[in-house]
């Protein structure tokens, strides 16, 4: 990682100095040991502040749609293989123009100490570079080569085992489980704010003529919020887990997201963020669809 960070700093310094990008988004030192913090720099002499270690958990793709970053010019951004999926989603949905961003892919052996559970199942340790085929997001630069081999594609049973555990519960128990989980929600919207795919300038929960959803942090309002959030991310969530990590109340949001992903995979054979040329599941239809409500 020591070599990679030097390479990253040199690259960022060069991109900023030459004016290829005006702002560079990477990771910097966190306030406490075991944490990093997103670092947004606009001058080459700050490139030395960039950090690359086991704690670069944040999905920085969220900044690609933030005016606080984009108003400063063309953006250079650090992504891990998993984060690249969110960038793919943003490109597919027309939120980011490929020519406005310089993507620096970091090879990654997995994040967190202990290793995040999702990293154990990772199949994109080394992001795809310029030689990638059209079905992969091609990073402009790829730094390093992962030492860890990509995980074998799991069958759907193993991939969605935690969802299946909840599905198998009797209705009353499932209801009680989610009541307990959602009852804790304080409606801080950290889940929404850190999500790269939750880029709406005005969220459904903020529309009040009429008020579609209760904004109050009571259990009924929280149910409405979390179900709508999951539904709006169905076929779009790339499974980065940023929402769950950001939740101060430790609500297992990934379970909801995975439930949606599972349904989309089963019914539409689609995985979000995998292929920049694919038509997003919720953005397309075919006249031959078996369901007549499309026609």
């Amino acid at each position, binding site marked *: 990682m020591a070599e990679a960070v030097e390479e990253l700093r040199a690259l960022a310094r060069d991109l900023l100095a030459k004016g290829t990008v005006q702002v560079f988004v990477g990771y910097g030192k*966190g*306030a*406490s*040991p075991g*944490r*990093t*913090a*997103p*670092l*947004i720099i606009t001058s080459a002499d700050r490139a030395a502040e960039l950090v690359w270690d086991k704690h670069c958990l*944040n999905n920085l793709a*969220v*900044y690609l749609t*933030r*005016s*606080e*970053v984009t108003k400063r010019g063309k953006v250079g951004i650090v992504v891990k293989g998993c984060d690249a999926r969110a960038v793919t989603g943003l490109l597919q949905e027309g939120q980011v123009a490929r020519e406005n961003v310089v993507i620096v892919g970091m090879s990654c052996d997995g994040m967190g100490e202990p290793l995040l559970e999702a990293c154990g199942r990772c199949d994109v340790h080394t992001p795809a570079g310029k030689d990638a085929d059209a079905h992969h997001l091609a990073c402009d630069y790829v730094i390093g080569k992962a030492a860890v081999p990509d995980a074998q594609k799991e069958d759907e049973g193993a991939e969605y085992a935690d969802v299946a555990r909840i599905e198998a519960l009797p209705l009353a128990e499932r209801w009680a489980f989610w009541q307990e989980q959602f009852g*804790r929600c*304080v*409606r*801080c*919207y*950290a889940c*929404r*704010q*850190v999500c790269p795919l939750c880029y709406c300038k005005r969220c459904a929960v*903020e529309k009040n003529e009429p*008020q579609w959803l*209760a*904004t*109050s*942090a*009571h259990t009924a*309002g929280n149910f409405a919020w979390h179900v709508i959030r999951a539904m709006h991310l169905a076929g779009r969530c790339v499974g980065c887990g*940023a929402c769950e*990590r*950001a939740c*101060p*109340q*430790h609500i297992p949001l990934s379970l909801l997201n995975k439930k949606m992903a599972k349904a989309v995979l089963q019914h539409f054979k689609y995985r979000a963020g995998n292929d920049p040329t694919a038509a997003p599941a919720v953005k397309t239809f075919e006249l031959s669809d078996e369901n007549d409500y499309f026609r």
Partner: protein
Amino acid sequence: MATIITAENLKQLAREMLKAGYRVIAPAKQADLVVFKAIKDAQEMLPESEYILPQASFKEFVFPRCECILRYRFGEGGKPVFESPNLDGEPPQAVIGCRPCDAASLPILDKIFGWDYVDPFYFKRREKTAVISVACSRAGEGCFCTSAGYAPDSTAGSDILLKKCAGGKYAAEVLSDKGRQLAEKFGSLFEKVEATPPVEVAGLNPAFDVEKIKPWLDKHFDDPLWLEIAARCMGCGTCAYGCPTCHCFDMVDEGDLAGGCRLKNWDTCSSALFTKHGSGHNPRSSQEQRYRQRVLHKFKYYLEKFGLRACVGCGRCTARCPVNLDLRGVLQTIAGKQA
């Protein structure tokens, strides 16, 4: 004369208070978190050695995240009937085992809720609340109470302050009438000794000089520093909702054709909607402006208006922040600048 209570008797105090009809609020486990909880059983109360700070302050018990302040229904002939919830029947409550920083937030909250309009919902709960805090014998990584003008054994807001002594005992400092009444009512659990035994209080060097913050803020409303530090702010309410002193709320009506409820809900200045006008204009249109508001409110406006800063240095905002936006570091930077 000094007063002592053993750890065993502190638990017994919670037990007896529960029996006497008190709502007892104490640090307890909730899944993998330590939270302030209205415990049902004294066994739930965590020993003080097992936590430094619960993940959020106990403000929820005086200022709930969501509270109905007015009910309405349409009575005969469609005439509206209004009804205000009555908190008189609420039980007395005691917070046991909070830290002095959280206790110190109460006198700060009293200012805003008792200012131009005395908020009856806040004060009903506040009057019924007794605070038995425990001084910190160790500081957490993110703690900066000594920089914010407080200390690991500050007395502000506490009715009884406990300080750790040797042998699982605590020296009890009774600080208010409410504290005295409790110490008398449950007197058999307290022990009188000749002199206060030596106590363990955490040492924590201040990270910055808080007096230097406001002079800089006074003159740097449009400083580029704001964008530099806060472009990364995600705009969520994680900091505000864990904060002991954040007090902003939104009012919403929820109802149907038969009637409904007016609710007072937590709100946060980090949110883009917070200042948005009906016209569509937003005077704080970007995140660095919102973050600046957060700092100015806590370290300038509140101080000017009420003579207190709206920060006790608990450090939760930083610890909880999804992007680790470090308030202590920001204040350190500001304090190091020429005003």
